[in-house]
């Protein structure tokens, strides 16, 4: 047995540190972001291990094994593709309907997952993180790894649809980067904030689930918002519609028609992210042990 000081632990917390009641309150948002990222970097090994374990847990004990990890993410996309091919949904905007809905659902599941996953993780792993002193950020990021894998699988299906239907991309890289940046910052910020609030107000998780169930129909995922009569006002005011239509247009239509609105949303999301990471960083320790 090795009785020497083990390197990883020594590196992890060999420096002296002080725990005080409200020390995180005075750190400010920039230091909060720095420490948030440092926590993730420090626990990268744990994150990858948890991801691998969660990945294995997805098929542990099944006869088909890892096959399930590739099939299950395709279920929500394939259901909508099936419905659109059965003419349950109309066709529109000159884009192949299967590709249109496959692409939109992939983005919808990815970005709403960035909201719902932190809520689920904080609720389910709160007790465990308290017992292990692991930062909650590590648990959330580990769950995002699974989300990213699922998105890659769905993305592969979208690429297949592109090839099959010959709907070749016409990418506007600036608009695409702006849309993805806005989407990531906005959804991650909302997810972090609601994950803390849901530990204080238990109704939040349920409300979010209901809103997202309705939200998919007014966010341009299945029908273009512009075709929805009075709800067309949501074209640029519903952030999820902006995320989906901007990303789709930036990839397939050579640019997004409402770039100024997208810039405004991106700026607002930057501010929102500063506030929400700081909020999460302060409150994460405080909610530990709350059931």
């Amino acid at each position: 047995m090795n009785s020497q000081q083990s390197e990883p632990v020594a590196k992890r917390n060999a420096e002296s540190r002080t725990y005080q009641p409200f020390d995180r309150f005075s750190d400010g948002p920039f230091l909060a972001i720095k420490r948030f990222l440092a926590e993730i970097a420090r626990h990268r090994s744990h994150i990858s291990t948890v991801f691998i374990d969660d990945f294995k847990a997805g098929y542990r004990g099944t006869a088909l094994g890892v096959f399930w990890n590739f099939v299950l993410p395709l279920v929500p996309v394939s259901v909508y593709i099936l419905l659109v091919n059965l003419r349950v949904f109309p066709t529109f905007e000159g884009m192949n309907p299967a590709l249109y809905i496959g692409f939109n659902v992939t983005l919808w599941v990815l970005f709403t997952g960035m909201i719902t996953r932190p809520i689920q993780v904080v609720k389910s792993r709160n007790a465990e993180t308290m017992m292990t002193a692991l930062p909650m950020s590590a648990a959330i990021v580990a769950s995002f790894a699974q989300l990213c894998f699922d998105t890659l699988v769905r993305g592969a299906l979208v690429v297949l649809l592109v090839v099959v239907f010959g709907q070749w991309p016409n990418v506007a890289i600036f608009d695409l980067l702006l849309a993805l940046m806005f989407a990531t910052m906005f959804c991650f910020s909302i997810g972090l904030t609601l994950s803390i609030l849901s530990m204080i107000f238990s109704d939040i998780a349920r409300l979010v689930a209901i809103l997202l169930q309705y939200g998919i129909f007014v966010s341009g995922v299945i029908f273009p918002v512009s075709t929805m009569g009075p709800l067309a006002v949501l074209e640029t005011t519903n952030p999820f519609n902006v995320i989906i239509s901007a990303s789709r247009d930036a990839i397939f239509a050579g640019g997004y028609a409402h770039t100024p609105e997208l810039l405004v949303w991106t700026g607002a999301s930057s501010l929102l992210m500063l506030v929400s990471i700081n909020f999460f960083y302060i409150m994460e320790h405080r909610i530990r042990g709350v059931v």
Partner: protein
Amino acid sequence: MSKDIPLSIDADIVLQVKSLGRVYARNRKATRKRLAGMALRALFSIRPKPVSELQPSEFWAVDSVSFDLTRGEALGVIGLNGSGKTTLLRLLAGQLVPDKGEIWVNGSSAAMIDLQAGFQSAASGRENVVLRAAALGFTRAQTREKFDAILEFSGLGDAIDAPIASYSAGMKMRLAFSIMANVSPDVLFIDEVLAVGDFQFRQKCLAKIREMRAKSAFVLVSHSMHDIERFCDRVIVMHKGKPYFEGAPAEAIEIYESLSADQPALETPQQLARSMGPIIENEEALANVKFQWCNMQGDPVTQVAFDQPFKLVLSFKCLIDTRSLIVGVPIWNSNSQFVTGLSTQVTSESYSLNAGESFDLTIEVDGGYLNPGVLKSMIAIMDGPEHIYRKLNKDLVISTAQHPTWGVVTVPHRCVRNQESEPRGRPQFAKGQS
């Protein structure tokens, strides 16, 4: 968590705790109300005020805990169920944030508080080694290097590949301890977990802890008084969230065993200080004031047996003329109860001293009156009604008597059986005999 370092610190100190406190609530509503207030402030980065008032359902789960821990030292924490031991350990391990006070950790730390923590029950023991090690900062490659040593220490053999859900509590403890033994942190927090292991593995763990003591410090929570006495240099007895006693293991165990759930908690130091009154040190009136508790041979002591006599030895130099010098020693117990007073007035003594004159005094106290516990006292010197010196004396521990005691003092008494009601002669009981 901040990186502030105390101004003056012993290089060997690995853990310093000052006036630590944590509030818990008995119902969810109060917890959520406090959290909501804090969340509102967190949104705007407004620092909350220190906790001063508690809601009716709130209480201090840990309160006024202070101690230092040096490398190689083992501190035991004992107390009745619900006395705040585990919450204290969680605070020290950084799993919970204190509501008051401060914890300074100088080095790496690891905790064995919950056997299940970090374990995935559906995964095998082997997979869980990787998971737990990753939580401690090990990469998969580093864990692979240590895996054989962990497996060998755990003695789990082929069971390492079985799902951990099929493990007994003892097997989980074996696995958890084996991982931790390879980590060898500067401070290790252990909560009762050794109790679930079988005898042989416990001996193995305790031998490992002894080996680790060369580099590590320990905080050990246990209900096994044998382990506490054997491994701890110092013990804190927790009672109703507050430190009730801190000192040598043998005394701590005696005090712990005499505790009952309805015994009141310690007052806070502030409340005790209020009971004791002001500190006065008139340097123009007295100089070289020295005082200490001694045994009857004159050796300084910090504890005496219940039935042994002891004395207070006091000396000072008087810098002013006094006409009616009185020396008093008020005594409180650790619950701030005023127990009694020793005074020169008992023998109607008062002294006239001239400036520059030295004064030596011994107050002898008979054994068998002050019941076991920690005695807190002050040295009060007065010239007539004027206090010219009031200062705290060192605590004196009265250790457990050979017979039961009640209250704070045992008054001399005898039990005599009425011979007329007892046809056969029975011995008389002397004072305190049961």
